[in-house]
Each structure stands twice: as structure tokens, then as C-alpha cells.
């Protein structure tokens, strides 16, 4: 540890691993450390032993769940949206060669006490109980309007300005019912609450187009998922970093972020050793989040809490035609909340658990003092739950941009159902740390494949 590095990266979550990989490819000398003996930090996938060690230190996994190594249980419930920014980074960095992806079989939305599939084909749309016949025609006109929109062609605008008119205005223009608005805003645009309705419509427009283009890309749902769990993603980017010279140290306790008299970053101390570097990038847990003893100065602030319940099931979720995987969205209006409840389920098809086991995560943004009660409508959709691991996690954001002290802190994994905000954070931290915009260029592949 006596060498000097360009960048020390703390924590091997997906955000940190993508940044580490990109910086190593740029030629930076990177040292990447994690206090855990596994990759992934808060975005890891754990085997049964690791899962029990984390949630129930006194218990051990029941033998009837099968072999430990068959399990890779995600800590955060997210899928990859097929046409999104993470897909672009995966392709451009060529880490796809380490990974294999499968589709998520379906996306469902809860309305009036039951779940319905978000239509993925014309036939499903015609048969869908989500809208009446006349409402389907109005919705068709609405989607045709969005699909044909061209910024440079005013004839496609129908009098709407996406940058000044609100989504509410557009819904009213097409006469869409509140239930349809819920469906569009929450099941397609994937908004967690209704604040978007009064804001300029462009963002909602872009989200709907992202959803429909992702849906069109592979067919069944807009989502894809890496075999062996989300934890494969940080591992793949860590390998990219290592191949370009990045040094990896797991199971390394970090005792102090060392700064000089002006508060500028000098190095990272672990025990009696201090490794020097020009910059440090790390997840909030290394900068005072919830750990008084680690990191010293607190450089993050809590901006909310998320509850996540990892549920092990012995059956597919009722009402999904025995789907091997799915997303279910419970829009906030349906259950008198401010934020949606999400269910994300995967199974042995994705090599994350033993055969005939299904792993569902129910999650939402915490609104009350009794968060477990808040996810009850989601848990109720699952049928009998074999075992349940509940966590309430604080979401942290950095208190400064890092440009003045060379300490760059990433954000916690939020409650959204995909990785688009993670990639936004990658772009933001990359820009702050390097002073340049992240431009993705195709990596020159060495070796053939």
C-alpha cells in the first residue's frame, strides 16, 4: 500500500464499479477497496449464508432451501430497462462479454384489488381489462401523438409545447380518465408519486418513449436481468477495471479519510497503513452514513428512507400466469399513499435460487413510523411467504460536490425500479472528478470472442 494512486475508490457497489472501470480505461491508476469480503456493497447479490449473516446473525439457512451456491439474492429490487443508459454503458464498455441476460417475463399494475398485465402486444392491449373500449381509443390517440412527436415539426405538436405545458394539460387534451393517467404515469413513466403531473411534460414524454421502446426491443416486458443476479453487474465492471490495471482489495476496513490542514483529501487509512491518492470516490457508508466510527467527518445527509422486504416464496405470484419473473406496481392512489409500492420477482430461470423457489422484493419509500405496515398491500399479493427479510434503509446524498476537497461521494440506491438514476450519478461523479463529460466510446476489444 506504499504506492500513490490517482484515485482510491471505496465500496464495490455498481456505481463505484462503473466509475472504477471507466477511470481505469482512461488510464488512471485506481485502487478499489471494500470493507466486505464480497463484491457489490449495497447492490450485491448474496448467497444464503451471506443473507442470513446479514439479517439474522444467530440463524442459519434451513436445509430445505437447497444448496448455498444456487442462491444470489439481490439486496436492491431493480431491473435493467432495455433501451436505457445502463444498457448503453454495458455495450460500450464491452462488459456484456462477462454477462448473460434474460427478459423479465411481465410487468403488472394493480387496480381495484387485482393485478393486470401491462400490455406488450396489440392483442394483449385489445384484451386488457385496464381500459374500457372508448378509453382505449382515446389512449390510442394519446400514444400516437407521443410516438409521432418530432421537435422540429410543429405539425406533430397539436398545439402542445412539451417544455411549458404540463402533463395534466396533455391528459386533459386527450380526455384520459384518472385510472388511465395512473397507468401511464406510474406503470409506464414509472413515476413514484404524482408530482410530475404539474411539471413540464417533456420528462414524462421521454420516460414513456423509453418504456415503449424498451418494451418493443425484446417483447415480453421492458426489462432485462443478468443471470446470477444483479451482483454480477458490479463484478463485471470490477473485472473491466482490473483488466485495465485497477487494484482490488476486499475485506479491508477503512478507518479514516485523511485530509490536510485545508481539508483537502490526502489518503485513506486502514489500520496503521495510509494509502495516498489524488482523489477518493466512495459510497455514502464510507463518509459517515450511519457509521460514527468510520470515515470521521460526515459528508452525507439523509434524504429519505426506503423499506425493502426480501420474500422467499415456494410458488409464483398468484395472477401472473405463473410468470418466472415480474414487476408489479401498486400506484399510490390505489392504496391512499404518496408513493407507489413495487414488487420485483425473479426465480431459478435467472439462476438466483433453487428450482421451485421464487424471490420477491416488496419496496416503497417510507411515509410513516410503521413502514412494515405500509408494504402490507404488496405482501398481500404474494400468497404464502416462506421467509421474509425486512430492512429499512436511509437514502443518502453527498453534502458537497467534492470539487473543493477531492472527496466525491456517490448516492444511495433509490426506490426507482431500474438503474437510470444510478447511471445519472455515474455521469455526475465522473464529471465532478475528471472535469470532463463522460463520452462513451467503444472499447477496443483485445482477444477475440
Amino acid at each position: 500500500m506504499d504506492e500513490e494512486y490517482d484515485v482510491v475508490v471505496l465500496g464495490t457497489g455498481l456505481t463505484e464499479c462503473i466509475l472504477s472501470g471507466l477511470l481505469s480505461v482512461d488510464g488512471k491508476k485506481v485502487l478499489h477497496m471494500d470493507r466486505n469480503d464480497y463484491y457489490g456493497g449495497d447492490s450485491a447479490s448474496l448467497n444464503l449464508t451471506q443473507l442470513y449473516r446479514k439479517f439474522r446473525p444467530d440463524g442459519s439457512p434451513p436445509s430445505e432451501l437447497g444448496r448455498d451456491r444456487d442462491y444470489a439474492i439481490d439486496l436492491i429490487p431493480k431491473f435493467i430497462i432495455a433501451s436505457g443508459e445502463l444498457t448503453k454503458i454495458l455495450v460500450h464498455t464491452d462488459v456484456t462479454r462477462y454477462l448473460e441476460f434474460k427478459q423479465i417475463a411481465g410487468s403488472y399494475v394493480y387496480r381495484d384489488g387485482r393485478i393486470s398485465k401491462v400490455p406488450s402486444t396489440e392483442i394483449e392491449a385489445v384484451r386488457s381489462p385496464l381500459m374500457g373500449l372508448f378509453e382505449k381509443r382515446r389512449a390510442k390517440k394519446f400514444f400516437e401523438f407521443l410516438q409521432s412527436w418530432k421537435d422540429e415539426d410543429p405539425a406533430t405538436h397539436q398545439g402542445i409545447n412539451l417544455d411549458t405545458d404540463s402533463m395534466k394539460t396533455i391528459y386533459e387534451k386527450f380526455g384520459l380518465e384518472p385510472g388511465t393517467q395512473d397507468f401511464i404515469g406510474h406503470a409506464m413513466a414509472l413515476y413514484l408519486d404524482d408530482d410530475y403531473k404539474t411539471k413540464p411534460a417533456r420528462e414524462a414524454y421521454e420516460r414513456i418513449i423509453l418504456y415503449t421502446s424498451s418494451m418493443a426491443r425484446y417483447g415480453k416486458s421492458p426489462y432485462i436481468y443478468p443471470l446470477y443476479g444483479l451482483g454480477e453487474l458490479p463484478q463485471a465492471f470490477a473485472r473491466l477495471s482490473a483488466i485495465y490495471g485497477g487494484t482490488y482489495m476486499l475485506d479491508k476496513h477503512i478507518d479514516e479519510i485523511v485530509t490536510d490542514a485545508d481539508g483537502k483529501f490526502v489518503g485513506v487509512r486502514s489500520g496503521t497503513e495510509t494509502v495516498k491518492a489524488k482523489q477518493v470516490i466512495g459510497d455514502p457508508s464510507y463518509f459517515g452514513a450511519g457509521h460514527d466510527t468510520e470515515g470521521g467527518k460526515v459528508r452525507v445527509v439523509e434524504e429519505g428512507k426506503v423499506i425493502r422486504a426480501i420474500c422467499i416464496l415456494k410458488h409464483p405470484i398468484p395472477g401472473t400466469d405463473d410468470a418466472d419473473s415480474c414487476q408489479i406496481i401498486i400506484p399510490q392512489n390505489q392504496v391512499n399513499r404518496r408513493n407507489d409500492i413495487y414488487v420485483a420477482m425473479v426465480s431459478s430461470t435467472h439462476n438466483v435460487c433453487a428450482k421451485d423457489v421464487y424471490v420477491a422484493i416488496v419496496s416503497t419509500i417510507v411515509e410513516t413510523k410503521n413502514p412494515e405496515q405500509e408494504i402490507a398491500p404488496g405482501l398481500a399479493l404474494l400468497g404464502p411467504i416462506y421467509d421474509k427479510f425486512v430492512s429499512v434503509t436511509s437514502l443518502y446524498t453527498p453534502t458537497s460536490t467534492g470539487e473543493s476537497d477531492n472527496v466525491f461521494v456517490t448516492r444511495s440506491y433509490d426506490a426507482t425500479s431500474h438503474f437510470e438514476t444510478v447511471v445519472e450519478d455515474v455521469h455526475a461523479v465522473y464529471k465532478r472528478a475528471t472535469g470532463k463529460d463522460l463520452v462513451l466510446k467503444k472499447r477496443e476489444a483485445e482477444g477475440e470472442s
Partner: protein
Amino acid sequence: MSKQFQFKLVLLGESAVGKSSLVLRFVKDQFDDYRESTIGAAFLTQTVTLDDGTSVKFEIWDTAGQERYKSLAPMYYRNANCAVVVYDITQTASLEKAKSWIRELQRQADPSIVIALCGNKADLAARRQVTQEEAQKYAEEEGLMWGETSAKTGEGVADIFTAIAKKLPLTAPPSARAGGARAGPAKTGVDLNKQANTQGGQNEPCNC
């Protein structure tokens, strides 16, 4: 047409025992005395043709230095069909390290994995610390293949990979091979690269 099979092969062993040099000799028939640690190669491939015309393509994963500091990812072992665990015949300690990697493989990798223990730097026999008998006895006890190689002279290198190719189960159709599914045409999941140019979706039909 002769049969083709593809397998994932992982390299393990202490730093500086010559893992990368061994692969470089096998794949490109080159050797570099002052080779720096592995940089820039995701994995290399090389095909071995057996006597009956069957060709076996190895997708060879190097550790990329992640074997130092206990930081090799589970992804590395995932779906590996075979492993070459390398030690340096001039360093007794490197055989002990190789043994611990073999225990790790037996714990983490698929039980059917074919493991070869490989004593490298055979050209430095004058400085030998690990006898052939000692290594061979250990390999027999653990049911491993064993051989000595010199990445520098090329001695034994092709032999050990050919021996592995012969030991692999060449019975299942290539598409069923887990390792082959990663990089070859046998990939069964969705292909992100193939679809990469159809983004935007402006003209996609509306399904709602």
C-alpha cells in the same frame, strides 16, 4: 463436419508464477521475459484439435491481478469447465498457494470442473524446490491432472492444454455447455449488442 466444443478455462495461482506467460505461449506462441502484470485482455481464445478431428475451443480467463488481496469475484469461477492452477517449481510456497486455490475451486466451482495442476518455470530446474514426485503425489490424491511446463521454452505447454481437452466431457451438444454459452453463438439469453442500433423507438407501434 467435425464436432466443435467451447469451454471456459480459468487460470489460478499466486502472482508471478507465470499464468499470463503460459497463456501467451499457448495462444500466440510468444514469451516476454519482462512481462508486466496482465493489462487489457479480457480473455483469449485458442483451439485445440484432437486426433479424431474434434476441435475444442478454450475461452481462457486470466485473473487480471484480482487474485491478490482476496478479491477474485465469484463471476470468475462461474461456469468454468476447467481450471489450470499454476505454481512455480522454484518456489515451495507457490505450491502451498496452489493447494489453497484448489480448495477454493472445490468449494466455489461446479463439481464437474476439470482441474490441472501445472508446475511452471521447468527451464529453471537447477533452482527447483518442488520435486515432481511431491506435486504428482498431491495431484493423484486430489484427483487432479498434473504436468510441468516452461512458458519460456514452450516445453509441456501444448501438452497440458491438449490433455485437458481430452479429459473434458465431449458428449453433450455444444449449446449445452455452460461455458460456451457465455461468448459463443450458443448464447441463449437476450443479446444486447445485436439490438444496440434499434434504440429510440420513435416509430414503434403503440401497444396500448
